[in-house]
């Protein structure tokens, strides 16, 4: 059994004070939901484990292609010509940003993973990996490498941070020229007499 004091400790006053009585009543009135099937519970847990910033960028890019050009195309505040350029640029930006963003994040996370080995790690063939200075360069010291889930998240976080540093350069070297190329391609294509239709 749990003591009254331990239940009382579950009450965190500061957050509760910020939300008014009305907000709390609304929250409390929402019915509780239980994930009954193991399949969905496993899927939710797997998403937490496997979804890194790279997958997030990919999902954001795909959903952006479905919404943003549509929003720009229906922007009545600007003339038709500007609207067309705006749509072309939005598409170019999404494609270039998603491709480079996903690839660089994924690559950096993989690289950090390759240089964050810990004792007991095995290679694809199942052989124990011999640890050296290079493949343990990013491994945190001490007890931190013991929790496998947290260690995976650590590699994702560090890989993403490294990717952001890399993207400071690739944003200018790859993203911007690629966006420009795709935008110009779409603008030029739209200006062709046949409306840019390919035979």
């Amino acid at each position, binding site marked *: 059994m749990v003591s009254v004091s331990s239940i009382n400790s579950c009450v965190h006053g500061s957050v509760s004070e910020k939300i008014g009585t009305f907000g709390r009543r609304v929250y*409390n009135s929402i019915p*509780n*939901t239980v994930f009954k099937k193991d399949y969905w519970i496993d899927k939710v847990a797997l998403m937490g484990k496997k979804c890194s910033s790279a997958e997030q960028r990919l999902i954001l890019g795909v959903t952006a292609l479905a919404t943003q050009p549509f929003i720009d195309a229906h922007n009545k505040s600007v003339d038709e010509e500007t609207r067309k*350029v705006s749509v072309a640029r939005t598409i170019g*930006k999404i494609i270039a940003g998603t491709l480079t963003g996903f690839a660089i994040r994924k690559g950096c996370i993989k690289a950090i993973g390759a240089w964050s080995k810990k004792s007991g790690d095995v290679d694809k063939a199942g052989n124990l990996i011999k640890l050296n200075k290079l493949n343990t360069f990013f491994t945190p010291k001490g007890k931190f490498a013991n*929790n496998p889930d947290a260690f995976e*998240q650590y590699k994702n*976080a560090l890989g993403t941070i490294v990717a952001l540093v890399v993207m*400071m350069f690739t944003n200018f070297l790859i993203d911007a020229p690629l966006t420009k190329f795709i935008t110009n391609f779409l603008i030029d294509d739209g200006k062709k007499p046949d409306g840019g239709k390919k035979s």
Partner: protein
Amino acid sequence: MKSPAAMFDEFKNVIYKKYGENPGKMLVHTGVLGWILSSLAQVAAVVFNDKISREQKLFLIPQEAADAAANIISFYVVTNSVKAVGSKLVKTGKLSTPKILAYLEKTGIPVKSKKGIKSPVGKWDFDITKLANFDEIADHFKPFKNGVDVGASLVGSIISSNIITPVIRNEYAAKQQKNALAKMKTKQIKQLAAPRGISIEQYQNRVAARFGSGDGLKV
């Protein structure tokens, strides 16, 4: 003074502690940083694209600047809020699994209100992670909560980046374009020069006298 190696070890441990058990938070923080950096590049891409006309740049540059500001603010505010709601739902037991409910029952906490005893599960003030014997369920609870956190972060980022931001930036950029075009027009009128030796007023009178009514000049 710490050595660079010691500082690097400390940095790795900070990243581990801060994000190792909180992937949702990592997605929000690195997402904000990513938007700042990519926005800088996108503004530069418009500025240096000579195929885009000056008038269109007047729309697209403010559009990019507005995009950046709206993206960063809305990404942080919306994504963080949706993530916080996701966390709250799991922590209070509003969103749970049979294993979590079984653990609560075993702990002596009623999962359903009965016989005048109200269940605290799913109520605002309840927090499973603060229970004294939380460690018993931590291995099941934490991955489930992390999954909900990440899912909520994704939903929040889609809403903020793909719906809220484009609408805000378009409204803002259209206003900016109108103002900029009006300024350009005023500047052009000011720069209208009369032929040498006469004032602009004299010039306008001469032109008016030359093209009288009926000469086809539309005023």
